[in-house]
């Protein structure tokens, strides 16, 4: 029993990678729902992180996110992933409107030596919950996306990473002179994920 409780608080690299990649999946779903990239009716509610989360039922998006999280998990386990960016672009013009930035700091010692760290699942879940709440509440200050939009996922990796079959090298799709809002971050003691959303300056605000 005691060993079980201790085992609960220990986190390994693989476990951490799983948590982080799962988080990306849910975060992407939440962003796509909250920003109205896909229609509301294509999402179903599930309970996760102590919150009702919305998951897409669109097969294409589902498989896309599944592939994404699998690949991210692989990179996270290798400690090669520096940042993941979910870019929301205008479908008509291709202009970048929002960048959801998840920068990742990996504990090098864990990757190199395979040691484990101590942090309880509950604490991590609480931190992730805070981020999810912030993502859900971001619609209050983010500008409305009037046009129909598409999304894209960028991964900032180490240069020695082999480009997988379903990935291509890309430009960073930056926004010129963006507005930035920093969200909460969470830390599994192996991966630290800082969340930040940057979006295009609203011209009406400037005038």
């Amino acid at each position, binding site marked *: 029993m005691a060993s079980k409780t201790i085992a*609960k608080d220990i986190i390994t690299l693989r476990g951490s990678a799983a948590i982080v990649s799962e988080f990306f999946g849910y975060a992407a779903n939440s962003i796509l729902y909250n920003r109205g990239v896909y229609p509301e009716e294509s999402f179903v509610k599930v309970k996760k992180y102590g919150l009702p989360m919305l998951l897409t039922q669109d097969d294409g998006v589902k498989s896309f996110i599944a592939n994404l999280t699998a690949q991210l998990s692989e990179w996270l386990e290798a400690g090669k992933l520096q940042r993941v960016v979910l870019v929301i672009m205008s479908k008509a013009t291709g202009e970048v409107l929002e960048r959801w930035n998840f920068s990742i700091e990996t504990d090098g010692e864990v990757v190199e030596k395979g040691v484990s760290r101590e942090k309880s699942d509950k604490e991590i879940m609480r931190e992730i919950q805070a981020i999810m709440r912030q993502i859900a509440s971001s619609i209050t200050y983010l500008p409305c996306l009037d046009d129909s939009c598409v999304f894209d996922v960028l991964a900032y990796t180490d240069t020695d990473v082999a480009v997988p079959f379903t990935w291509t090298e890309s430009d960073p799709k930056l926004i010129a002179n963006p507005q930035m809002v*920093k969200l909460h971050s969470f830390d599994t003691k192996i991966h630290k994920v800082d969340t930040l959303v*940057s979006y295009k300056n609203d011209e009406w605000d400037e005038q």
Partner: protein
Amino acid sequence: MMLRTPPPKRPRDNIPIVESPPTASDRRLVIYEDPSPLAGPDSSHGPSDHMLCTYQCRQMVKADFFDALDNAEKQVREYQSKLEELNENFLKAEAERKKFRDQFLQTEQELAAAKGREEALKEQLLKEVHDSQERLRKQIQTCSELEVKFRNEMNLRLKAESAAISAEEKATLLEGKLSHLSDSIEREKKHFNNELIQLKRESKFSVSRISADLERMECRANNAEKESELLKEQLEDLKKQLNESLHQKGEVEKNLSNFTFQESTSTESTILVKHLQEEIRNYVSWVSDALVQWIMPMSVRYYIVMHVNDLSVKRKMEPKVPTHLQLEVKAFTSCRSSKITPILARTGACDGACDIYEAEVREARKLKSSHENIDLLKEKLLEEKGRKEKAELELSKLQEVQQSMNKLEDELSSWKSLMKDIPGVSCSEDIPVKFAALQKEVIDSMMKLGETNAQLKKMEVALDDAQLGKRNAETEGALAKEKAEVSESEVKRIKLTVIIGLADRVLQLSVVTEERDKLRNVVNEIKKSKNDDGGNETANQTLIQELESSLSKKDCFIAELESNLREQQETNRRQRVEIELLNERLNNEARRIKSLERESDRLRSEISLLEAKKARTYQLLNTIKLGHGDFSSANTKVLRMVNTLAVDNEAKQTIEALQTELQKTKEKLQAVEELKSQSGDSGKLVDSYISGKILQLKEQIATLEKREERYKTVFADRISVFRRACCELFGYKIVMDENQRPNGIPVTRFTLQSIYAQSDDEKLEFEYESGNTNIMANEYTSQREISRQIEIFIRKMNSIPAFTANLTVESFNRRTLS
């Protein structure tokens, strides 16, 4: 029997006590049946008694004696125990003494250690003092060096200021020179302009004059040439005539000689001579007329030329009319006087022609001189041209000067604009002042910076020192605390031991005094009894001596103990003083520690503030870095997941469109079929094709269904195997079913039943939901024992397997035991 007991037994109670010592001292039992040893002494006192003694009496005496013996034995035992006690006390006292000595030694050692520590502290302090002195010396040295540097800096500054002032003076001088130069340049420019204009005018004038002169001279030269040609022609004519006349003269002379020979011809010859003379006169008059005709204008012209030359030399204009008149008058007079009159004078002679020739030569010379004049004029013209060139050169220089002037003006304007740009500067004089102020400001700020840096360094050094001191003090404090605790406990112990010792001493003393008194009493009584029965004297004396010696020993021992006690008290006092001192030191250390802690708190707060600032700036930086999404291509590359969703959407849309189209075509087909049924066999062909297709599809469906069935059966087999194995291995039958909550979230429910369950109600229900498993409340789980186990295993320890395992073991036990 009771009556028979003799009444004087009670007063005899004391006797055995008196009598017992010899028995006690002898430690020999006297047996009644053996009357011989007793007979001796008794016989001396009262043989009648012995003789009178009845059995009862004997028994009584025996009993008395036994009583006395018992008492004596008891006393002996008591004494022995007392002695042992005393010995024990003595041993205790010795042990205590040893203990005290040990303590004393320990305290001495501690004292020595304390002294050693004190010395070490003193040494440390001395070292610190030395260090601080050295530091002070170094600082003083650095201070002096800094002062020297400061002086140097000041000197340099003064030099720089003087240099600045000299530079300013130079600048002002240069400005003055510049202005002067600009003035002089302007003046020169004006002067040159004036000169240029004048020169231009003069050159124009002189050119026009020279050209006029030239023309005139050319005309004159042409005329002169023409005249000379004419004159040459005339001369040739005259020569011819002269030759003719000479020939005629020769002929005449020949004729004359012939005439003289012949004399006949004299009349004729005179006539001929007359005729010839007339002819000659005619000829001369003609020649003179001709000469008068062409010599006049020549002379006039000559004079004009001369006059022009004079004019050109003088460069002054004279009124024209009077000069002309004068010229004409002069020409006439000169002609008359110098040329015409001699010619006229020579008209009468034949040799007049030579004179004319000479005059011609003179004319030619004059012409030559006029030519020379022309050369002179040409030279002058060249000179004028040179001057003109010089003026042009000067003009180009002037342009250069103008350019430089423009440059200077530009510079001046730029300086002026710069002056305008500099705030608080209205004129050029303000600039140096401003510069000086700015330099001062810079120097001041540099000094301030240096000061702040020095202060910062000092602060850092102080901080380091304080931290070191704090650490030292903390360690010292900890040591002192430990020491204090140890000493306190020691003090307590010592106090306790002292109190105990004192109490023991007091008790011992009291015991000993009591004992002494008792012994004294005993001695006295023995002495009395000795007096009473002097037979025991020798035996008693030794006893007394022994007792006395023991008494004296005891006294000595008491005295020793007392002295020990005093010593202990003294050492106690000393230790107390030491403890007080240590306490004071401890208090001091505690105060110091507190102050250091306060300082460290302050420093910590400062550090935390700085760290917070640092963190904030770092966060800001991070945010900026993060937000922009910049990256260095050296260690990062950006990958994009190929997103075919948009394409998929398009594909979907096309599929939908196709489906709608298909629907439409189906509808059309239906309509066609309806028509076909109406119209007969026209569409049989199509129908057969479609039916074939349908059959094919149906077959496909059938095979797929079969396969599905097979999969289902295989899956059911496998799952039942798995379930059975689970049940066997873990002791629980697990039933799973899916549910949905009212809010639409799907939930999986697991019902577990132990294979050792005694009733069907013993079921555990769990809800599994996105990685979390929760136990559900039911009748079985609400039992006291089960709920307690749930509380312990699941709620506290967070382990469901442990709970189920425990439950399995318990129900197994129950089953097997029952």
